[in-house]
């Protein structure tokens, strides 16, 4: 059977929060684009760069918030080693997890924006995302 691929247009951009300094709590790294009709884009993390000079390894967890504002982890833990060197994860190494809103109530819902929870404060993190939608 012949199938026809459907073009999914996308744009690449840095995380909208820019260079994030971790707080060991929920840190927003990217807010999904929102259209004039209220529809929200989705996004896949394509690159993570982290600089850790805290003195020891720091675990980075990427995910989103549920609609009760609790963190929901999407990617497995990434361990940022203490400097040097810097820590990077590229597109080939990252699963194409698509961050998307889910409009169910409370803990069943998902905000969709990309959050980071680090095991320690003061790690510098920047992500690159690919956004789909409009």
């Amino acid at each position, binding site marked *: 059977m012949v199938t026809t691929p459907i*073009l999914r*247009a996308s*744009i690449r*951009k840095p995380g*909208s*929060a820019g260079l994030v300094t971790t707080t060991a709590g929920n840190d927003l790294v*990217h*807010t*999904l*684009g*929102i*259209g*004039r*009709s209220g529809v929200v*884009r989705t996004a896949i993390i394509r690159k993570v760069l982290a600089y850790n000079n805290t003195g020891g390894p720091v675990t980075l967890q990427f995910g989103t918030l549920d609609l009760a504002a609790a963190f929901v982890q999407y990617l497995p833990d990434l361990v940022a080693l203490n400097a040097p060197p810097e820590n990077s994860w590229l597109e080939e190494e990252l699963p194409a997890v698509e961050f998307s809103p889910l409009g169910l109530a409370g803990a069943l819902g998902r905000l969709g*924006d990309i959050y980071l929870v680090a095991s320690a404060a003061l790690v510098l993190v920047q992500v690159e995302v690919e956004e789909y*939608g*409009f």
Partner: protein
Amino acid sequence: MNFVDNLYSPGPITPICQIKEHLAIWSEQRWIGYQVDYIEPKPRSSAFVLDLIALAGVGVLAPNAAVAGQLIQALQVDSQEFSHLRWFVIDDIEGQLWQLSNMARFAGRGGQAGVNLFTPVYDPWLATTTFWILGGPGDKDARIGCTNISGAIIGQARMGFFGYTYRLSKEEAIHPNARYIPAQGR
């Protein structure tokens, strides 16, 4: 001869007629006849790339915030001129066009389309962004606004315009071979 060919057909922008050919342009509730004396290109250039945030003097644009339609003086034409333009955005915004002061363009009853970073992905030559500005009486100028659809605060909302300007002579009657142009749509 197909009178609508090249108005919005996909492909690179081209003049809609030759010099000394005839146009019928819808304006002031009627078709008005013109002969084209001269055609001048407006290639993509920095002169016709505008920053709506700077034009509106709003400093930055918050997520989902909008700049209301601004009169784009750079696109104004003289009374015997007719502009044929396509446009694109550079920043993660959605641009909207109004003409005749507040008449939404690219619009139907249910809403007004706009131009964003994805527009050239599906329409590489931007044919569906085509619009027209006829000089002369009435407010036919372009008013452009935009909405920040990026999800983040942005400091620039840039968009660019390119196309052709036609120098016209008004005719007493519409020439039988005139090409009919919608201009501002009414």
